[in-house]
């Protein structure tokens, strides 16, 4: 997993609540058996004017000029600003894969759906939760100023605005630790092999039907 330490980048706003993972990456792209290559189909139904299917040459498709990510001012965005309950619906990890493949490394929103939240951190994307009022203020600032950038410092739990304001945020210590160090979850758990085996011995006594 890629480490996340500090990031200064353009912010792109997706101004609607309940953005679901079907919208982030539509189902036809879930047929891939790979982890990569989902970026060109991120927000496919909003982003293009035609219907997208796997295997199409996306560079030849007609873009929806209304969609925020198609506007040149947000071209190099690496931070996504979103509303409540971002990432709701299906558990597909293809959603964070698509966001990451497109280039997003951090998202700021008032709330996220649980499974999406977990999946994102496992792919090196930092999800920041801020008060709805602060998020609202950021939406206004981002749309008012072309080239609006934020600096996120994970070690310091701090966001810096272009105006020099600092906004602090909280993130679970265990997630922060893994993100800062780019740690592999499975490798960490396998260091606890003895605990797992001891549990199995104990549990087999209590509930043998789970082991037959």
């Amino acid at each position, binding site marked *: 997993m890629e480490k996340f330490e500090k990031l200064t980048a353009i912010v792109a706003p997706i101004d609607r609540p309940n953005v679901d993972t079907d919208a982030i990456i539509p189902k036809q792209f879930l047929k891939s058996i790979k982890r990569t290559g989902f970026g060109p189909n991120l927000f496919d139904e909003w982003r293009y004017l035609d219907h997208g299917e796997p295997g199409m040459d996306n560079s030849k498709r007609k873009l929806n000029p209304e969609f925020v990510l198609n506007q040149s001012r947000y071209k190099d965005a690496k931070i996504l600003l979103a509303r409540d309950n971002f990432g709701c619906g299906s558990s597909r990890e293809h959603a964070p894969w698509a966001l990451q493949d497109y280039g997003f490394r951090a998202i700021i929103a008032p709330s996220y759906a649980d499974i999406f939240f977990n999946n994102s951190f496992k792919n090196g994307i930092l999800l920041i939760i801020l008060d709805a009022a602060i998020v609202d203020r950021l939406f206004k600032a981002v749309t008012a100023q072309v080239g609006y950038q934020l600096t996120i410092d994970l070690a310091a739990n701090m966001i810096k605005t272009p105006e020099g304001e600092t906004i602090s945020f909280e993130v679970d210590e*265990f997630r922060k630790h893994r993100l800062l160090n780019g740690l592999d979850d499975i490798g960490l758990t396998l260091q*606890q092999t003895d605990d797992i085996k001891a549990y199995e011995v104990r549990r087999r006594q209590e509930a043998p039907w789970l082991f037959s």
Partner: protein
Amino acid sequence: MAGRTLYDKIWDAHVVRDNGDGTALIYIDRHLVHEVTSPQAFEGLRLAGRKPWRVDVNLATPDHNVPTTDRSKGIADPVSRTQVETLDQNCREFGITEFKMEDLRQGIVHVIGPEQGATLPGMTVVCGDSHTSTHGAFGALAFGIGTSEVEHVLATQCLVQKKSRSMLIRVDRKAGPSVTAKDIVLAIIGKIGTAGGTGYAVEFAGEAIRDLSIEGRMTLCNMAIEAGARAGMVAADQKTIDYVRGRPYAPKDMHWAMAEGAWRDLVSDADAKFDAVVTLDATTFVPQVTWGTSPEMVVAVGARVPDPARESDPVKRDGMQKALDYMGLKANTPITSIAVDKVFIGSCTNSRIEDLRAAAVAIKGGKVASTVKLAMVVPGSGLVKQQAEQEGLDKIFLEAGFEWRDPGCSMCLAMNADRLEPGERCASTSNRNFEGRQGQGGRTHLVSPAMAAAAAIAGHFIDIGKLG
């Protein structure tokens, strides 16, 4: 010591190790696998040279991509075919039991787990699918995971989890005869919202919940995720035990006696404390219909499409207007005047035998309206299909003009060939009315099986409670 909730009891029994940082390593008893969210996990195992920790707890089946017609011809879409073949190869390579496409036991993963007795009370059950919450109906802790976690479970039989807060949703008194589990859960989501359960493990309780059959409880828990809760659960009782007994994967002989004793303790203690409590009165419930693009956008069938002008929150108002534009609906339109183009009866929410029986009853000898282009019934598994045919339900559907299909996820998410065309409106027994969910530009109204069948016959939504 304060009493423990059902969630506390299952959690405590599965803690392998408390990491001391707010997380614990939790042991997983059952892992269900399907073709969409597993290929990258198996690939990860291969790349790292790892093997599954316990092969025997995994059960796999292809469901999202499988065709529901002409299965003998295989899968026409080469990309879908590759995904299903990849599951076959992975299961063969790693020795995992798979009910393949041609197997009578194949079906939607959340239908076959309980059907086989592979889902048991008190278990931790996971699957790379958000609707894994379904299995909570058995007094199990069941939740959906992403592909990284699928790989993690395969490799370690464990997951690193942060304990959720607990919520009790108590539905008191008795629901009316036309009110199904689907209506109850849609009404709950309408009340608490699609993020109302976020961060919580929800236990459903109260007379109206106890009155539900096990299949009804599965419908209820299935949609806990649509309220934002990763896990929904119902305490085990005699119905649970009776349902599980004798199924192929259920414990036998001495183990059955032990298990049955342990399962009777799978209830929240009387003095257990929940972090949040919601109480509702089932006598106020009526059949529900969603009007928008989020399951919380739901009203009673006798109501009208809500008017954004009456919403004071600007973000919500804008969301409502976007939903109405997408759905091609005008505010204040009576729900019963909305005509449908297609009807879909199926999905992990509503494709079990009781769902099909309820739909068959609602047909009442009628014919699918001439304005309805397609009405289809997709049973949840090969065994559900077989049972329905033994009961003659297939004939009732076929004579009324419904198509009678083979089992799979089908038009719930349209990964196979079953989908809505742009602008088509569907009465659907599935779980998500998101934009494009059933096909790009498709418009979904979520309803119960009886409501869907009645809409197919009438050509528009009708209040089945008023049919008498």
